[in-house]
């Protein structure tokens, strides 16, 4: 006699420690196996794009800090880059270098948080403690640079707000050397671990075609073996001057995504190192008009965010405020594949898959 089974509807979130914020996933399970999954977003919808229509371009910068709050500097870079491109403004050399340095340090900080929280999700507590101690050092560097710990508001259209305080460059160099050593330790701690490998190898697999069809970008796309990084393919700022490799995976499973994150930290360290060596003296703020008026028209520009292509689309009527501002938020786009990934998996893999897609809810909901 067959055992009668019933499908069960289950809510994961919005208050759940492993959904990285307030994502809610409604899953239908048959025993342990997921037969249907649907992410419910919007629990953190703060109306950033609507608010931006009422703000001058400089006033929008602090709001971008709060989009992807793990990578505020990169968000700053996206919006100031877009306005500069639209207005055809020059940025001083020193400012460009500083931008690259802080953006890459921020990428490292963001990937470190991924590393810590992902392992926390999988049940390993100590990496979380390690990486937050490490991240604290980056945050301290930023704190000395601009006086904030999370929401930096550091970049301005035409440059950056503050020059480095005394000794900052040396400190940053020391940190790079320090983290290089630490990375080996992380690999030793986690990467070869049997339990960890069993939980991530071959889990949550997708191929390049699916990823492209779902407009995925960033590590999610690169983990499938497709070489696409805006820093190389469409160089913005001064990224074309630095020597670094684009990290690509092979199989597009959770393990590859994890490895891509860690290897990307190493590449970012390389960029920071070069930028710190090359940084010239000079002003950090270029000549910009007092009131920024973007000429009428539509503009799009994108940067490689910590989670993928972070685009800013400006529709301007020639005023000092945008008519419409749209952020292409990589977390939101990457999340769309989740239902497909989850179907057929067991319940315990849900967190492993969700964690590896690496979303930040501030960015998903905006």
């Amino acid at each position, binding site marked *: 006699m067959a055992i009668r089974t019933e499908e069960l509807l289950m809510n994961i979130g*919005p208050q759940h420690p492993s959904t990285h914020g307030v994502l809610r996933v409604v899953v239908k399970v048959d025993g342990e196996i997921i037969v249907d999954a649907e992410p419910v977003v919007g629990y953190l919808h*703060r*109306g950033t794009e609507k608010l931006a229509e009422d703000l001058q371009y400089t006033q929008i910068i602090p709001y971008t800090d709060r989009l992807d709050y793990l990578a505020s500097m990169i968000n700053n870079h996206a919006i100031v880059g877009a306005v500069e491109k639209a207005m055809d403004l020059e940025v001083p050399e020193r400012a460009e270098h500083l931008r690259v340095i802080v953006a890459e340090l921020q990428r490292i900080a963001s990937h470190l948080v991924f590393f810590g929280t992902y392992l926390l999700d999988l049940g390993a507590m100590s990496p979380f403690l390690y990486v937050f101690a490490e991240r604290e050092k980056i945050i301290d560097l930023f704190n000395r640079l601009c006086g904030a710990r999370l929401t930096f508001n550091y970049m301005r259209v035409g440059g950056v707000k503050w020059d480095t305080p005394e000794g900052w460059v040396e400190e940053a160099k020391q940190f790079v050397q320090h983290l290089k050593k630490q990375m080996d330790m992380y690999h030793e701690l986690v990467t070869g671990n049997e339990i960890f490998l069993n939980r991530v190898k071959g889990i949550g697999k997708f191929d390049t075609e699916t990823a492209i069809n779902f407009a995925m970008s960033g590590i999610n796309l690169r983990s499938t073996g497709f070489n696409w990084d805006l820093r190389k393919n469409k160089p913005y700022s001064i990224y074309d001057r630095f020597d670094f490799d684009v990290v690509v995976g092979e199989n597009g499973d959770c393990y590859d995504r994890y490895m891509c994150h860690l290897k990307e930290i190493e590449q970012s360290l390389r960029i920071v190192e070069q930028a710190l060596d090359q940084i010239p003296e000079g002003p950090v703020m270029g000549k910009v008009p007092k009131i920024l008026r973007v000429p009428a028209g539509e503009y799009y520009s994108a940067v490689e965010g910590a989670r993928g292509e972070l685009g800013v689309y400006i529709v301007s009527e020639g005023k000092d405020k945008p008519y419409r501002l749209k952020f292409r938020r990589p977390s939101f786009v990457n999340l769309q594949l989740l239902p497909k990934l989850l179907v057929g998996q067991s319940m315990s893999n849900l967190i492993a898959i969700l964690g590896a897609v690496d979303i930040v809810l501030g960015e998903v909901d905006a």
Partner: protein
Amino acid sequence: MEVTKNTANPQEPAYVQFEGFSKEESQELSKAGVLIGTLEQVKAWARSNSLWPLTFATACCGIEMMGTGAAHYDLDRFGIIFRASPRQADCIIIAGTITKKMAPILKRLYDQMPEPKWVVAMGSCATAGGPYVRAYSVVKGADQIIPVDVYIPGCPPSPPALIYGLNKLQEKIRLEAKGKKVR
């Protein structure tokens, strides 16, 4: 309970002056290692030193909360350990923006927590809407949904500020047990 030191004669050991007892009696009790308090005070002392907050991180402030809980600032030394289930928590740190969609869930989580319970509003969003006060989808402060005990300003508050706020909450718990009104 306050420890009194005889400044005139530093040789004399410190003692606790109990309410309703003379100085000599208090000294004698202290010497014998006896402490007198109401049961409420003892309970409050225990509670305030083992606050278990719910992990309710909705937005950016949550990252600072995680940072405070991690190795560098280490909330564990105050007996503060994060719990993921409201049934096990006795304090909720609202770290982040509360949207209108989130508000009913916050209320439900609060209702699920066992008494006694306290609420800390971390950051300007949870205090009064913060930078999103003009947004159509954001609740202008968590106190519109549930009663808040401690407000911590900042966007986001730095970890020392969060620790200070939590210390204030501990103080409040102890003072309230003595029958003092704390606002």
